[in-house]
């Protein structure tokens, strides 16, 4: 067994969804076996000489191995039976030398080939991997990673099994069969014919069984596919299974499928395993025939005992290559099919190649311009339509819009993950199509929606942003992203290993790490794609602070649903259905009362039922609220104290009436919803209390207008 011979046990590895169950049910045939073979031959490359040499040596050793029994026969016939002791030592020595040289040659061949096949496999694997790295995101959108995995493992293994094992084995088996047949006929035509009688039967029987077995194997594969589906789903969703206490249900489902696999497996294998006993029976029957017929012929003077001994030895040697051949057909087929699938990926054109005169870049001013950009993933469905905008260096651009508006696509286009169909995208007045992709991307710091961390330590994961960063720089970046504090609290700090499930990290923490990674990369242009959606608002503010520092002299694009986080933007681009529908600052857009305004308001909109307004009790403040973050600080002064409770209540009621009408939960939203209708004193509230003011809370059937200074109105 060689190391490449892994394809057997892995046959039932869960194949990924795209294939559907039973893809390997029947032996897959290559669509163009010759083409695949030729290309595979290309991989032999400089090993070709070695292989030719190995084949030559194999030929010699096989012939020597076959000469052995023949010489033994000679020894029996010419020395032992005639009792001629004289030459026996010589011939025995000759046989020993024959076997010894055969063994030495075999060792040499094995030694040479052990390297060759593995090197080809390694080359093929590396080529495929490196090629995959060059493919566009579009390719990954359409191909499941499971499918790619299986091409890089199962399919290459299938090729490897043939390469490492069969290349010399084919030669050997063929030679053995041909050699034996030739030798038999040379030795004794009639005995040869007699011993070959069983051969056609054997071939027919094994072929028949093989055919039947294949049907059952297909059945097995289908059942296996279903079982894998059940297991995959159960384990992926195990936490939900646990929380709904559905272990019983899923176990029943599992058992049903498990039993089906067991039954199908028993049937399929029973069929397949009938082949070896058959081969055995034929080979034993052959010995019987040789012994019986041969002895009869000896009696008649038509053969010698030495010949019988040779025939028996040969008969034993015969069955093995035969079995090899029946396996060979299958493994060759699946190897070629595997090779074809590998080449299929290798033939996918790499993503947008750099044009030969592409520029190197090492730093941008950061002026970004989209000019009449059109883009569609699928022809006829434009995702970005005629988009034009300009971002000045160092400015922050917020991209806002409903899901599916094309926000992420814009970022993908800027990174040149996809090429646009029409228009141009330029950075510092240079079309990005003329830049080296890698350089371009290195200058764009992207924090993606889906956080992906590699297995490895926290340190390594942050360092992914800049591989030559020192530990101190990594820690500095983490501190910048406000990640340092929680990282230090991990069991091994920066050396804590992260894994796929990473029970030790929350979503938000993973995001902080990915932000640190982007910070470390120190890009010219920063792109945040909803990077803070799972971070709580307070942490988000901390991150925003860090990012704000980072963004100071960098052009930055922020995509977020939470509008509160992008109010700081210099420009807001409101995107809907691939178009910029509005642009301007937050204030300008609010004034406009258009698309953005509605989007923004939905965040503050609340509904308060009439039933809520039964009793209003203004709340007396016990201690003054700490001034918060600038906006409201220092604005609370200057209000008269000690107002009549009844009047207070009246005013509160009035405010609440407005709230009710506008279905607003905060003063700010009430104002935004309809400033014109507010009572005269309302603007004053607005001006003076932009902080925690005017929230209505219902408790025990009562409604509280929580407003720290309402009494002072």
């Amino acid at each position, binding site marked *: *067994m060689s*190391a490449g011979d892994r394809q057997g*046990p892995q046959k*039932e590895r*869960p194949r990924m969804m795209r294939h559907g169950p039973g893809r390997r049910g029947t032996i897959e045939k290559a669509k163009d076996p010759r083409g695949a073979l030729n290309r595979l031959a290309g991989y032999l490359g400089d090993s070709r000489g070695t292989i030719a040499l190995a084949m030559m040596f194999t030929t010699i050793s096989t012939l020597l191995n076959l000469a052995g029994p023949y010489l033994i026969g000679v020894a029996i016939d010419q*020395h032992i039976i005639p009792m001629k002791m004289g030459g*026996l030592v010589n011939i*025995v020595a000759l046989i*020993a030398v024959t*076997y010894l040289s055969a*063994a030495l040659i*075999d060792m040499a061949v094995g030694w040479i*080939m*052990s390297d060759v096949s*593995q090197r080809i496999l390694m080359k093929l694997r590396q080529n495929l*991997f490196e090629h995959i*790295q060059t493919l566009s995101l579009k390719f*990954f959108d359409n191909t499941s990673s499971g499918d790619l995995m299986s091409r890089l493992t199962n399919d290459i293994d299938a090729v490897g099994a043939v390469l490492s094992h069969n290349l010399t084995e084919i030669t050997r088996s063929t030679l053995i069969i041909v050699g034996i047949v030739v030798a038999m006929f040379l030795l004794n035509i009639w005995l040869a014919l007699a011993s070959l009688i069983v051969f056609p039967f054997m071939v027919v029987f094994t072929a028949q069984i093989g055919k039947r077995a294949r049907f059952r194997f297909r059945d097995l594969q289908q059942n296996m596919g279903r079982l894998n589906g059940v297991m*995959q789903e*159960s384990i992926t969703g195990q936490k*939900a299974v646990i929380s*709904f*206490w559905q*272990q019983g249900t899923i176990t029943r489902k599992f058992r049903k499928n*498990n039993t089906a696999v*067991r039954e199908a497996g028993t049937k399929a294998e029973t069929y397949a*395993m009938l082949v070896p006993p058959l081969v*055995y*029976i034929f080979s*034993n029957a052959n010995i*019987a025939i040789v012994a019986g017929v041969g*002895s009869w012929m000896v*009696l008649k003077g038509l053969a010698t*005992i030495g010949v019988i*001994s040779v025939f*028996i030895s040969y008969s*034993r040697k015969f069955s093995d290559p035969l079995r090899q051949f029946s396996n060979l057909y299958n493994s060759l087929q699946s190897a070629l099919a595997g090779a074809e699938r590998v080449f299929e990926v290798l033939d996918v054109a790499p993503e947008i190649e750099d044009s030969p005169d592409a520029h190197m870049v090492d730093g941008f001013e950061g002026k970004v311009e989209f000019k009449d950009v059109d883009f569609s993933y699928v022809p006829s469905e434009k995702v970005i339509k005629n988009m034009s905008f300009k971002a000045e260096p160092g400015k922050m651009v917020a991209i806002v819009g409903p899901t599916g508006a094309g926000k992420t696509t814009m970022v993908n286009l800027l990174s040149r993950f996809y090429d646009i169909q029409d228009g141009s995208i330029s950075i510092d007045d240079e079309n990005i199509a003329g830049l080296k992709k890698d350089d371009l991307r290195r200058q764009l710091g*992207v924090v*993606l929606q889906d956080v*992906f961390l590699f297995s490895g330590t926290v340190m390594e994961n942050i360092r*992914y*942003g800049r*591989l030559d960063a020192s530990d101190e720089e990594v820690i500095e970046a983490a501190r910048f992203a406000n990640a340092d504090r929680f990282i230090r609290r991990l069991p091994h700090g920066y050396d804590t290993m992260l894994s*796929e*499930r990473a*029970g030790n990290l929350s979503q938000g*923490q993973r995001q*902080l790490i990915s932000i640190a990674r982007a910070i470390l990369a120190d890009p010219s242009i920063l792109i945040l794609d909803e990077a803070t959606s*799972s971070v*709580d608002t*307070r*942490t988000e503010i901390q991150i925003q602070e860090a990012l704000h520092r980072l963004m100071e002299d960098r052009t930055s694009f922020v995509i977020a649903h939470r509008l509160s986080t992008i109010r700081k933007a210099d420009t807001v681009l409101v995107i809907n259905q691939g178009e910029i529908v509005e642009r301007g600052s937050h204030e300008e857009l609010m004034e406009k009362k258009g698309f953005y305004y509605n989007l923004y308001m939905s965040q503050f909109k609340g509904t308060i039922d009439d039933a809520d307004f039964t009793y209003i009790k203004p*709340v007396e403040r*016990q201690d003054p609220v*700490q001034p*918060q*973050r600038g906006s409201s600080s220092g604005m609370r002064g200057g209000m008269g104290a000690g107002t009549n409770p009844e009047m207070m209540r009246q005013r509160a009621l009035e405010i609440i009436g407005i709230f009710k009408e506008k279905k607003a939960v*905060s003063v*700010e939203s009430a104002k935004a919803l309809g400033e014109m209708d507010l009572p005269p004193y309302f603007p004053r509230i607005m001006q003076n209390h932009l902080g925690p003011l005017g929230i209505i809370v219902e*408790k025990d059937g009562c409604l509280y207008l929580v407003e720290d200074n309402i009494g002072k109105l």
Partner: protein
Amino acid sequence: MSSLKRSFRYLKPYSKEAAGAVILLVLVVAANLSIPRLVQVIIDEGVANQDLDVIIRTSFLMIAASVLSALFMTGNTILAIRASRGFEAGFRDAIFTKIQSYSFGNLDEFTTGQLLTRLTSDLNQVRLIITMSIRMFTRMPLTFILSIGLMWITNPQLSMVMVVLLPITITLVYVFIRVSQPLFRQVQEKIDYLNQVLQENLTGIRVVKAFARREHENNRFKKANDELYGSSVKINRNLSLFMPFITLLLNLGTVAVVYFGGVQVFRGTSSIGEIIAFMNYLTSAMFSVIVLSSMAGRISAAEASATRIFQAIDEEPKIKEKPEAVKLESIDGRVVFEDVGFTYGEDGGLPVLSNVNFVVEPGETLAILGATGSGKSTLVHLIPRFYDVTEGRITIDGWDVRDLELKTMRKLVGVSLQETILFSGTIRDNIRYGRPDASEEEVVMVAKAAQAHDFIMGFQDGYDTFVGQRGVNLSGGQKQRIAIARVLLVKPKIMILDDSTSAVDVETEIKIEEELRRIMNDSTNIIVAQRISTVLKADKILVLENGSIADIGNHRELLESCSIYREIYDSQLGGGVQL
């Protein structure tokens, strides 16, 4: 080989089949080994005595022996396969059932991929070895021993050849296995590593591209690839030396037999037939050695697999039911945390929660706010005992949750997890997941309450729309709403929503909350949230900070007393707006 040995336990239910298979094997070996003997008879008695009768009779005996041997072999095959497939099914059942007993803490220790590999390819490796062991491992040693015995019987003097041959062979096999066993293990590890690199690269391809790390990834893969190459070549080299060596030993043995046998024939102490028979026995004996040693690689692969499987099987469920666990039929829903502390993992690490004390009265709504990583999810996971507290205790209606029967308790406590998990199947199947017997009206009712009905009806197949790979792609918010409907259908007395509306827009969220208040008004509701608007109307709001309660109270109280709360509040609804 301890793990493999342990796996044999699962063969026990099929011990009859296995035993039958082994017995049949003995018969196979006996029949097979009778053939050289019969050849000897033909030559020595038939040919030498010119007795055609003997020749014909013996030939037929030989054919009969072959047929019998084939029949026994077939019987053995059938039994062996039945046993090994049964073994596989039983073993897989054991692994799967074990996984079903896992709690969250156990699941954190494995990745999905790891568990699936154990259930599929690892198990397959072990099954192959079991099949082989029933078919080969008994047959080969048996053939070996019997052959040597028969050699002795046939010609004791010639058997001296074995005295030389045997020690060399055994030494050789021993050395080979000692040298290659670690190599096989190494190759196995390299394959695993290569696959891991591959898997990560493919999953994280966007990150790789965004950071333009192609070179880095190529090198990473190359390293793994080179290592695999190196180990594989080493193994192949070992094999390339070992196999011809063993064959050479067999052949030299034969040569020796020819010579010494020839000498015996001269002296008249032996016959030609005897020598031919002897050579055949020698071949059988040595061939079985070759077959056995060629399995060495498989065995170490299977041992590695078995070890991995037992890792999953030996994993102690971290949540165990007490034998005298209390079955609660119904509860009021009073939840009390008493000095609760919690740490993930045994090996230290800072506590995620410490000193948490609070009470939620039946029918109340508790909202939990706090920074990322402050322990909100962990806190709610402790209530239905997804994890066990490491300090203090949690009670439901006065019962320590650790004293309750899990099944009944989990039916009373409904949780919608932060990570929305939907299963393949229709939307209806998914909503009904927790209560498969729910009526159509109930399904629609909860879907309406979760604000999912409208978008579901927007699909062509409505509630029969398939979810996932083969069906529609639901947005994050839609998935969350289905997940909420799923919990509502169970009508839990304590309902926990762990950040379950984060991807739902505010307007819809408010509608959902209103519905929840309406239909869940006699349940205790615990809601983890990021948005202030979500928690506004809660009876109590708990503010978590670094695993401890910073403050607890209603919105009004917290605005006054809790600076963290005000900060959160400001960040969302208040501050930052300059008008």
